[in-house]
């Protein structure tokens, strides 16, 4: 009798052990969400940039011209290496970019660099080392003050529609001005934003380290605060605009016009003079040395490039290059240079 009960109990136990793991069907998601595949280095709700008050100076005035053949330790070293190391954007269509069809660097700023290389070495063939960088890389590349986690190749000079500012003048030199840019905004065709005054509460993108980001975050220019987004480059901002992740891109008109040239479904908002957006004189950022010799030689090259003092402005190198690369900005005159008295 005992045995029978034990036997039954054991059989029952075995049955329970085997039978109790009934498999459940997996839960199937009915509305899967597309992952937020952001480009590297995008930051939402930026509330502070390095918006220290700009010290006062005459930001467009640079050092007086030296002849191409001038000698100085800086210039001699560069000539000896037969290599000018230049930081440029690789994605600034029209300004400086790598043409994906030819594989070569091309654009208005690339033309300027080739003129400088020719003045220093007699040729622009194999004498320029192009280092791709974005505004955020400029301070380290031009001063050598490297951040711990993000090393940047140090360069002799950098171009990239770089706005001449007094705070930057304290860190590195600027050449004389080679473009004059205005700050504008790019939106999608269907955008409810029709004026730069409408951006309150909208997501507006600028590249990190740019003056435009400072205007958005720190300035009191816009009547209502936008939601500020920073990206690694202006091109990344454009990608975000195309992907509906931001509502507007805010930067220099030269950059925006070239971004718009790559996409037929975006519009430049009209300029609004009541907003008092500062103009953006554009110069070459040059590593600072005590004698400023490289800056002064570059200023000589730029003077010839712009055709300073020439009566016939239509035949200058500046005009030819501008027509080739930046014609969709509308006709423009080369800027007039200003020099520091020395």
């Amino acid at each position, binding site marked *: 009798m005992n045995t029978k009960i034990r036997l039954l109990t054991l059989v029952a136990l075995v049955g329970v052990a085997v039978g109790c793991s009934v498999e459940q069907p997996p839960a199937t998601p009915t509305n*899967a969400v597309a992952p937020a595949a952001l*480009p*590297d280095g995008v930051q939402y709700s930026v509330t502070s940039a390095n918006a220290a008050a700009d010290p006062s100076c005459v930001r467009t005035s640079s050092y007086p011209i030296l002849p191409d053949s001038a000698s100085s330790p800086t210039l001699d070293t560069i000539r000896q290496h037969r290599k000018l190391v230049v930081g440029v954007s690789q994605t600034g269509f029209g300004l400086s970019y790598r043409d994906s069809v030819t594989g070569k660097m091309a654009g208005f700023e690339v033309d300027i660099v080739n003129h400088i290389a020719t003045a220093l070495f007699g040729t622009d063939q194999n004498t320029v080392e192009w280092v*791709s960088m974005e505004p955020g890389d400029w301070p380290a590349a031009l001063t050598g003050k490297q951040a711990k986690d993000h090393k940047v*190749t140090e360069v002799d000079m950098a171009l990239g529609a770089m706005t001449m500012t007094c705070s930057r003048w304290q860190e590195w030199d600027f050449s004389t001005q080679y473009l004059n840019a205005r700050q504008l905004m790019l939106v999608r065709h269907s955008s409810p934003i029709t004026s730069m005054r409408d951006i309150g509460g909208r997501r507006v993108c600028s590249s990190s380290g740019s003056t435009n980001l400072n205007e958005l975050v720190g300035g009191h220019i816009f009547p209502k605060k936008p939601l500020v987004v920073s990206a690694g480059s202006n*091109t990344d901002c454009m990608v975000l605009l195309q992907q509906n992740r931001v509502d507007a891109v805010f930067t220099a008109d030269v950059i925006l016009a070239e971004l718009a040239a790559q996409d037929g479904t975006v519009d430049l908002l009209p300029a609004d003079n009541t907003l008092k957006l500062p103009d953006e004189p554009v110069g070459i950022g040059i590593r600072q040395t005590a004698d400023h010799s490289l800056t002064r030689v570059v200023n000589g090259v730029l003077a010839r490039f712009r055709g300073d003092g020439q009566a016939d402005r239509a035949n200058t190198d500046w005009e030819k290059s501008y027509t080739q690369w930046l014609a969709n900005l509308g006709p423009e005159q080369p800027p007039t240079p200003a020099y520091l008295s020395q």
Partner: protein
Amino acid sequence: MVTSALVGLCLLSGLIGTLGIANRADLLNAVALRNAPLIEQTFTVYRSLADADATSADAFLAGSAESPSVRATFEDDIATAASALTTASALSATLPQSDVRVTSTGCTSADTLSPATASPATPAQRLDLLARNLAVYTGLIETARTYNRKGFPLGAAYLSQASTVLRRDMLPQARTLYDEESALVATSEGQAAEFPWLALVVVVPLIGALIVVQVGLRRHTRRSFNIGLLVATLVVVGGGIWLLVAASIEGGAVDASRADDATQTQVLAGALTDAQQARTDEALTLIARGAGTRFENDFTNQADCLGKALDDVVVTQPGIAAKISDARATVTSWRNTHGAVHDADGAGDTNGAVAYVITLGPGGKPSTNGLAGRIGADLDQALDLVRIHSDDQIHDAREALAGAEVGFAVLMGIALVGAAAGMWPRIAEYQ
């Protein structure tokens, strides 16, 4: 009283022994039929994605002259990844949810970028996220291609975004899944290879009890043998020996698979992904978006890791040793040719540098892509050899257990009947 104790012990032995074997067999079956294939599929996802990343960077380097073979490689990579994802999802649905957490120890730098999305926790969630991101990734790549064909630099921005999605959001998921499943297999195999103490704890007292009862009966009845009890004793002893022998053969095979093959697989798989990551980094030094030095440093790190992995791996078969030494030599050639790439790029000869990467190295030597491909093939073949060995071991282990489960239960049943039959005359005396 004595009878029911003997019968109870027989039942208990049968139950514990049979369930123990069944448990081991289940663990091994899961390893052989689900975990191991899932690991393999996960690895396929990882390496085809990493290869797609490197290939798309190559296509960008080559400009609009994207060669049909590069394009075909990319498409096959994506197809392989998608297919492996589907298979892996099906496999993971059949596995019990595990709570294994692994902190990755490899040198792969895929996870240096911070994740942009909430981290998934289960294999199913990881696979789901991978599948959703794969769709996004291919969309970005095609947009990049279109812009590249127009000569527009927006293409580079899309390529970079695609590469970020892949390296930041996808590869770490595949890697973690791979590491978690490997850890899970190690745990399962560890359990399957344990000495069967519990069965022994019941079988030995049973044998003891049978002998004591027989000795007692012999005194009581003055008969030399009780046939029923003798049969029961012999059967229990035989069953016990079978159990021990089967378990130790199986345990030995599992241990062999676990100790050598698992470690080798881990190191070789790490080396293979290091090689692919180094190849992407090399291409990115030339595309050099942002700061080119970052990718040069990454390349150096990855190549160091690759070399270290190849030095560290403990090789168990001569066939594998040959592959490893070939891979090691190829890494040296790669680093030399990479030096030439770096020099050409530094000298402003970007097209020359690109040619060294894609077509032919200096002096007609193989391009760095060719060398990376050779390292990949070597490591693939080495991994295959390890896998075959490991599969064989697990197969042997499963063979050793085959039949033991039912056989032991039947033997214990016979012992039970024998013991009951042997005791029956004694019980009848009391009625």
